[in-house]
Structure formats: C-alpha cells, structure tokens
C-alpha cells in the first residue's frame, strides 16, 4: 500500500459516510487541523447543522449561506440550495430582478421541492464557484471541506453533474455542469474521503461505496478514515488481566472498588469492543485495498475544539510538517 498524497494538497475534500459515523466531526477536525497549519479553510455543509459551528468553537447558531469566520483561517457556510439557485440565476441573467419574484412563487418552490437532482447540482455548483473565487490574486480558500450527505445519498450527489450533463444536452447549464464535473473528477484538486466505523454495517457499506465509486465515478479516493476506534483496556503486557481478575475470589474485600468479577467484566467488555474494531479495520483495509487511518474513540464525547484537535492531529499525523 502506497502512502496517499497529503490531504492538505487538495483544494476540495468531500467527506461522506453513513449516518452516525461522525462524518461531521471528521470534516470539522480536518478543517480545524488545516487552519491551524496555516491554510485558509472553508467548511461547506449540506445541512445547516448547528453542531458544526459549535464544534469549531463558535456559538451554536445555525449556519448561514455566506461564509462565516469562526476563527483565524476558518470559515463555515451552509450551502442552502434555494439561496444558491437564486445566486446562480441572478448571475446568469445579470440581475436578480427577474429571478427573485419567480423564486418566491409558491408553485415554483413546490415544483423544485419535488424535482430530483437540482439541489445536488446547485450545491456542487456553488462549491465550484467557491473554489474559483480569488482574493488579491490568490484563491480565497486554500481548502474547501464539504460535509456531504450520508453515503447512500452521497454517491447520487456526486453523480448528478454527469447525469444532468447527459440529460440536458445543450445550453448554458450543460456547459456549467461540465465544469463542475471536471472539478469533481480532477484528482489533483478533489478527494472523496469516506468515514467509516469499525463495525459490520458501516464497514460493509463503505466497501460497497468504494466499489461503486471505482465503477461509476471518476472522483479520486485514496483512503478510508475509520472513526471512533476503541483502544484495548490494558497495556499490551497485561492483556490477559481480565481473565486473571475473573479467577479471583469475588468476595475479596476491595473497599470502594468494584468486586473482582465486575472489574473483569469491564475489561472483557472493552476487550471485546477493541478486538471487534481491530478485526473490522483489517477487513476494510483488505477488501478495499486502501489505507485505513484510524481515529481514536473520544471517551468524553466531542463537544468543542479541544476533542476535535486530537482527531485533527491523528488525521493529519502522516502529513508531516508540510
């Protein structure tokens, strides 16, 4: 297995994963780590999840469409499809005077709500727009981290430009869609970063995701991040401590400590979880043939930048000091 290219060399990292895998935390950790390493980073979220801003140290307010600075070098933005559509159509027609009344129409909104694909397309279009933005002659953002929808939808999401480019055969939309597709498919600029848990269902789904990406999509994919991996309960040389504890007389007086068998059960339970995690980390590596960097399970839960910084360090450990 070759060492993948640095995460921080990309312009666009699209973080995806099944619900509950900690996709948003990983996206936030990557952004935080990159900002701490001097990059100007934008987290573009598909959901207006207030938790994201809180994780990054801001107030727990819902995200806004316009990039909002949460700390030095770090912005967050919610790519709200209707706002993005208004912006796009306004740019196309040279003015929002015609666009805004139409977008306010109930009928048009209803139609859009039920129409497949456009949300994904306009979201990716906005990401492309952000990637192209310049400020004093250099890109406004060095790195854009997209907190993408959960896996199933995540793939549809990336496939939409291709589908639309083939369904809409001419016109400005066709050309714009092709530019978006080009960005997604450029391995120098864009990386798809799936997040998995070391458990059966997420591992299987991630393996399927990798397979489907390889078959159907031209987006670069060079590693799978495995989140929340449990460490074994004891130092390696004390590995069998739980069985030794279980063999003690359970009536041994230990004062305020739990009795030996309860101590043993705690160890055994943590062992079982760590072993299961280890097995699935290996399995995902071998079925996908990809490196599977792991992130530690953060015991106290993730509620702010401190816990996140630990994940960021683990995530970017291999990047060196570049």
């Amino acid at each position, binding site marked *: 297995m070759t060492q993948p290219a640095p995460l921080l060399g990309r312009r666009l990292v699209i973080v995806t994963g099944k619900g509950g895998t900690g996709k948003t935390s990983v996206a936030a950790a990557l952004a935080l780590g990159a900002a701490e390493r001097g990059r100007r980073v934008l987290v573009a979220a598909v959901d207006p999840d207030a938790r994201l801003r809180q994780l990054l140290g801001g107030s727990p307010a819902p995200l806004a469409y316009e990039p909002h600075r949460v700390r030095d070098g770090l912005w967050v933005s919610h790519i709200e499809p209707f706002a993005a559509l208004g912006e796009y159509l306004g740019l196309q027609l040279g003015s929002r005077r015609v666009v805004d009344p139409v977008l306010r129409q109930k009928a048009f909104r209803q139609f859009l709500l039920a129409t497949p694909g456009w949300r994904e397309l306009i979201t990716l279009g906005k990401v492309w727009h952000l990637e192209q933005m310049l400020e004093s002659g250099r890109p406004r953002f060095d790195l854009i981290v997209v907190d993408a929808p959960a896996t199933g939808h995540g793939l549809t999401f990336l496939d939409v430009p291709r589908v639309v480019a083939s369904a809409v055969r001419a016109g400005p939309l066709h050309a714009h869609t092709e530019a978006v597709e080009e960005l997604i498919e450029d391995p120098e600029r864009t990386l798809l970063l799936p997040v998995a848990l070391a458990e*059966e269902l997420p591992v299987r789904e991630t393996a399927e995701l990798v397979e489907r990406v390889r078959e159907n999509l031209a987006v670069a994919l060079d590693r799978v991040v495995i989140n929340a991996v449990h460490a074994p309960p004891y130092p390696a040389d004390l590995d069998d401590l739980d069985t030794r504890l279980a063999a003690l007389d359970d009536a041994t007086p230990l004062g305020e400590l739990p009795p030996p068998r309860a101590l043993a059960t705690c160890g055994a339970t943590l062992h079982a979880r760590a072993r299961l995690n280890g097995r699935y980390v290996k399995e995902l590596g071998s079925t996908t043939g990809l490196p599977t960097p792991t992130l530690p399970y953060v015991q106290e839960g993730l509620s702010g930048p401190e816990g996140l910084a630990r994940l960021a360090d683990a995530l970017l450990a291999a990047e060196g000091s570049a």
Partner: protein
Amino acid sequence: MNLPALEKRVVVCVGTGGVGKTTVAAAIALDAARSGRRAAVVTIDPARRLADALGVDALGNRPEALSKERLAALGVPESGSLSALMLDMKSTFDDLVTRFAEDPAARQRVLDNPIYRHVSDALAGSSEYAAMEKVYELAQSADFDTLVVDTPPSQHALDFLDAPERMIEFLDSRLVQLFIHPAMAAGRAGFRFFQWGARRALALIERVTGVGFLQDLSEFLMAFEHMSEGFRERAREVPALLLGPESAFVLVTSPETESVKQAHRFLERLEAKQVPVAGIVANRVRLWPGAAPGAEPEVPQSSEARPGDLAALASALAEASGPDYPAERAARAAVDAAARYAAVVQRDARALGVFRERSAFLRIVPELAGDVHDLEGLLLVAEALKQDSTAKRQDGGSEVDGDAQRGDKERESASA
C-alpha cells in the same frame, strides 16, 4: 411484558441511521413469530450476515420464509412463521408503473423515458415512497399477521409519511400541469386564467436547460399523469393504514448523546402529528455488570482510588499470579479500565434520562459482546425487548456478571 406494538398488524421502526433499526425490526418480527403469528420483516439495507441469517441475501422483491426447522429451534410454534424481504426500490417502482399504467404502451413509455430511468431512484422521497408502497401491498394480502418495517435512514425521518402526498402535490402543481397540458395552457380559454408567473418560471428553466430537457420532462410527466388516479388513491390509503389503529411506531435510538437528541426531536414530531408511538428502544446500551439499566456507577481513576483498596487488589493478584507478575501496575490498570467503562455506562444512562418519564415504553437492549448477525443473537435482542426497564430496578441489587445474566436469558427463552 411485551411492547404493545407487537399486537399490531403493522409495526414501523423509525430512527436515524446507524442505530440498529434493522436488528430491532428483525427482533420484533422474530418475537411476533414466537408468539404464534405469521410475521414478515421488510428491510432496506440489512448487514450482510444478518441478511444471510434471515435468508434475504440477493433476494428478489418478495418475502422469503425461514425454514420451519430453524424457527422451531428458536421457540417458534407451528402456527408462527417468519419471512423477510429486502426492498428493491427500482423494482417496486417498476411494479407500480406496471400496475397503474393504462395499457402496455403507456407502461413502456414511462419505463423507457430517459428521465424516469435517471430519476426513479433519485426522485424526491422515492425510497420512502417505495417502502410504504411495499408495506401497503403486503398489508392487503392475507399472508401475514404482523408486518415489521425498517424505514430508510433519513435525515428527515418522517419523510416517508408525507411521501405519497408529496408525489401527488408534485403532479398537481401548476408547473407540472403546464407541462402536461401545454395546449390548454396556451389555448384561448386557459390563457387568461393561467398564472403568468408559472410561465415566467418555465421560461427561466428553459433559459438554463435548453428546450430538449423540457420536452423529455413533459413526456415523462404526461405518461405519469395517466397513472395519477392510482397514485392518488394510494396517497390516501397509505397514511390511513400507517396512522390508523392497526399500526404502531417504534422509535429506535442508540445511547449516544447526539442520537438521543435526534430521537427526542423525532418523538416530539411524531406526537405532534398524533402518530401513535408504541415504544422507544435504546439499542446497544452499555450496562454496569449486575446493575439495573439506569444505574450510574462511580469508579475512581487509580490515581484517585484509596491506596488501601488498590493494595488489596494488588495483593490478591500477586497471590494468584506469583511474585513475577507486576501486580501493582495490573491493579491500577484494572481500576482505570473499570473507571473508563463506568464513565461510558454513566454517559449512556444520563443520555437516556430524557426518556425516563416515558419509561413504560422504554426498552433497553444491552450492548452484546459481538455484532448481532445470527438468529441466536436476534433472540437475545428479542428477549431484551420484553424486559420492562423500570420493573427490573426493584429486584436489581444482587451482583451477577454478564455471563450469568446471559444464562438467565437463555433459561427464560428456553422455558417461554
């Protein structure tokens, strides 16, 4: 004590992704089978080995029954049965088109339309719609007493309830009507009444998409329109079934704080819609050995434990393992691991505290040593669903380890 849900004809398991909804749905179906009912579980995306265990691997869109012998070994009586079906969205949709199409030509027009081919699995709420459609179809047949549905993981997990109506709203929307009846819209009679706003919207779409796309879309919608009577009927009947007295919802959550928060919001939304919620299942909850669910154990880190207690543990270990064993370090490691586990148990208990006032409906499924991937594992989950999490608290207190607990469960299930 059973969850009241198990007496219902349709049990809908809802919850966010990754909480073990499929496992809980399968366990409820197994439990129904064990009480002599003919049960079927409709799943969306089961874990591979659970799918193997249920026999739904690579199955077509039809329920497949587990063998009588395997079920008998799990305590399912002669009258009970368990079938499983893995939903195939695309073929459910194709079936629907086939059923509602006026004639073979109309059917083929829809199936061949490039837009239908691209969108039938991306269509707004289509997976939710397909799941509900399948359940409705099975509920109409006399083959099953109990249907347990594992709903698609969805950010907006109530989408499936609104899915049929959203489909109808879409077909009825003025813009779609304009595609379908362009002649009428442009004709003299319609023109005056027609909302010129919609025409402006159309013009806008055309500016960016070009004309060809609108033609394909128009053909697609026209073909679909012919079937809309069928859809309309379904849009009324599906919610009537799911929200009616024959159905019950079971909310599945993990004990992780974020998942509990979402489950709680979800519960409020269900109740606001007056959807009958028959139970809350907290899946994979970490429990303290020998204590009742909800207990919050206090175990100090080794650095804060009383030196005498640590010494007592170290000397017991040294006595059992000989003088070469690093007993003192081991005692600290044992206590630190227990403190680590106690913190997790505590966090789970506190996170689930918000459901305590609804504890009559709360069922705790303890975290099992491995993943649930066979029928025996499913049986353990089914047994946990029968435990009343509040009743257990009174008789708790005697210290038993995990193995002994499991032994009790096995005895219970053997005698049931």
